[in-house]
């Protein structure tokens, strides 16, 4: 996984609650095994019904065409578990999402891909939103995971909280499978104990013999 230390980029305000993965990455955009993840991000909102670009959508505005940080509301990433909703962010160089809260599976998918999910306390979130809107894409913000700060125009640095383990994993770009495989002996031991105690869980067999 690509490590995350710090990221500087234009902060895009998409201030809405409950933005779901059907909005972020519609399933209809996944027409082949390797879709254009850059294009699929917010594909529907980006276009009008006639297929032309929707100039009102924030990511289509000239100052937000090369975003780095997405700023949004409550429960971001609700809905499907599809990881393309995270890959679409990375393909657009969005490596930080600042939200009031995240849907569980979406947040896990972020952590798996070196995308930093930040949750600010409500008061700070409101203040940061106002700064992002005021900056209007003219000046970038910097998010530094080592110091756990967001810095940029319009005010002092903002400190954010993140679980120490999540921070380490992102900073070091840890190989998640590799980390788990250091416990291979534990897994083997678990399987042996389970095979003795509840053998039906350690075997899956069609009793009809097919």
């Amino acid at each position, binding site marked *: 996984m690509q490590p995350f230390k710090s990221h500087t980029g234009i902060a895009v305000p998409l201030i809405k609650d409950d933005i779901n993965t059907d*909005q972020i990455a519609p399933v*209809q955009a996944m027409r*082949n095994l390797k879709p254009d993840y850059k294009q699929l991000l917010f594909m529907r909102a980006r276009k009008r019904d006639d297929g032309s670009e929707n100039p009102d959508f924030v990511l289509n505005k000239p100052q937000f065409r090369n975003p780095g940080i997405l700023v949004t509301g409550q429960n971001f990433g609700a*809905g499907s578990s599809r*990881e393309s909703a995270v890959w679409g962010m990375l393909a657009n160089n969005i490596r930080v999402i600042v939200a009031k809260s995240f849907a*569980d599976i979406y947040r896990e998918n972020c952590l798996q891909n070196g995308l930093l999910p930040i949750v600010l306390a409500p008061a700070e979130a409101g203040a940061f939103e106002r700064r992002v809107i005021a900056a209007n894409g003219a000046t970038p913000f910097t998010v530094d995971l080592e110091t756990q700060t967001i810095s940029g125009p319009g005010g002092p640095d903002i400190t954010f909280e993140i679980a120490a383990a999540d921070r380490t994993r992102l900073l070091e770009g840890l190989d998640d499978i590799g980390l788990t495989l250091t416990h291979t002996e534990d897994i083997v031991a678990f399987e042996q104990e389970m095979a003795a105690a509840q053998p039906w869980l350690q075997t899956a067999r*069609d009793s009809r013999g097919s």
Partner: protein
Amino acid sequence: MPKTLFEKIWDAHLVATRIDGRELIYIDRHVLHELHAPHAFESLEKQGRPVRRPDLTFSMQDHTVSTRPGRTDTSNPDGAPFLRAMREGSRRNGIRVFDLGDPEQGISHVVAPELGMVLPGATHAVPDSHASTVGGLGALAFGCGTTELAHILATQVMALKRPKSMRIRLDGRLGAQVTAKDVALKIIAELGVAGGRGFVVEYAGSAVRAMPIEQRMTLCNLNIEMGGRSGFVGPDDATFAWLKGRPWTPQGAQWDQALAQWRKLKSDDDATFDQEHRLDCSSLEPQISWGTDPSQVVGISERVPDVANARASRRAAMESAYDYMGVAPGAPLVGLPVNRVFIGSCTNARLPDLEAAAAVVRGRRVADGVIAMVVPGSSSVKRQAEEKGLDRVFRDAGFAWGESGCSMCAGGNGDRGEPGERIVSTTNRNFENRQGPRVRTHLASPATAAAAAVTGCITDVRQLIAGQSLTGNA
């Protein structure tokens, strides 16, 4: 110390705690589908890592399959590369595929329980947010992304943070034509689309005990629509009776041994939950969504809520939903003309769901101009329904009768509505554009959907049925 059933299942599957504090939870059964598994196969192969337990892993072709009779890989051209990559990846890794043409193919969340791959107290993972459907049998299931799916393939564990526990007690007797779907929609309306975030939910209470297993699965299926990490119903005699004899369950002496263990799967009386809720279901009426998220729900006799009476934080979403859905605050839903009806999905396409819909449809016809479709949850459900003649009931009435798959729920197979259409759907998400660009989706039970199909508008199925019996008595 007293424990909740969630804690018992979790602790019984805890392999180790990783250096980063995440707990490694052993996954007893891992069920894949073709929309996401091919990417995981590819990434594992690049890393040179084998699948640890192909014998505990199953591959289902469901998201992209065509529902047309006589279908092949290319009936939905966009699905073909997924189906092939799934088939080939599964073969290379020694994983059993429930492929097109397999008599037991179907939606993963329907097939795994009906074959008895799901067992009480077992852990499950599926790269799909509706994984917890199988919680209806007392299994603890987690939906996951593609990278986590590769992790499970390589290690047979998930690295998780322990969720909090919630209990929702459902009391009272459900009225006529009120089902688990209606109960679940009501819960989501009460708790909101993020009300379950971070929680594993145990559904308890007399109303749950009275629900047949298929309805318990519908209840647990919709748990994710309030953001729940997982949801389940503690197993009971009904669970064990439902499972007995299913082909992948333990047999003979091992069944008896398993049963003795399963009988212990209960939350302790004095266990504490991080959150508790209670809902009296006795006065609940059939529910239907009016808006664009699964919490925007009302009883069938109610009117579209007025933004003036809503919490401030919900108002913007409501205004936008009125516009998208073409509904007015204060207007009744009953009587709104519909263009299409879809009966299917992991939420509501098991045999009793189709029976409930057929009971409404029998002797009636799909209203002029309405396109109506039934897609059974599995090929086995389809066969059983045909043995009971349900396909004739639907076809004679003017419904299309499809081959099994996810179909119009997410539209991954090309089945979708036309722009501007109003659809009553037995699925789980009424998000904008999900069932097609600008399609307006109303979520409801199979009986309510069937009533809309035959009347051509949103209808209180209880009144439709009452009208029939009045005529019958005359």
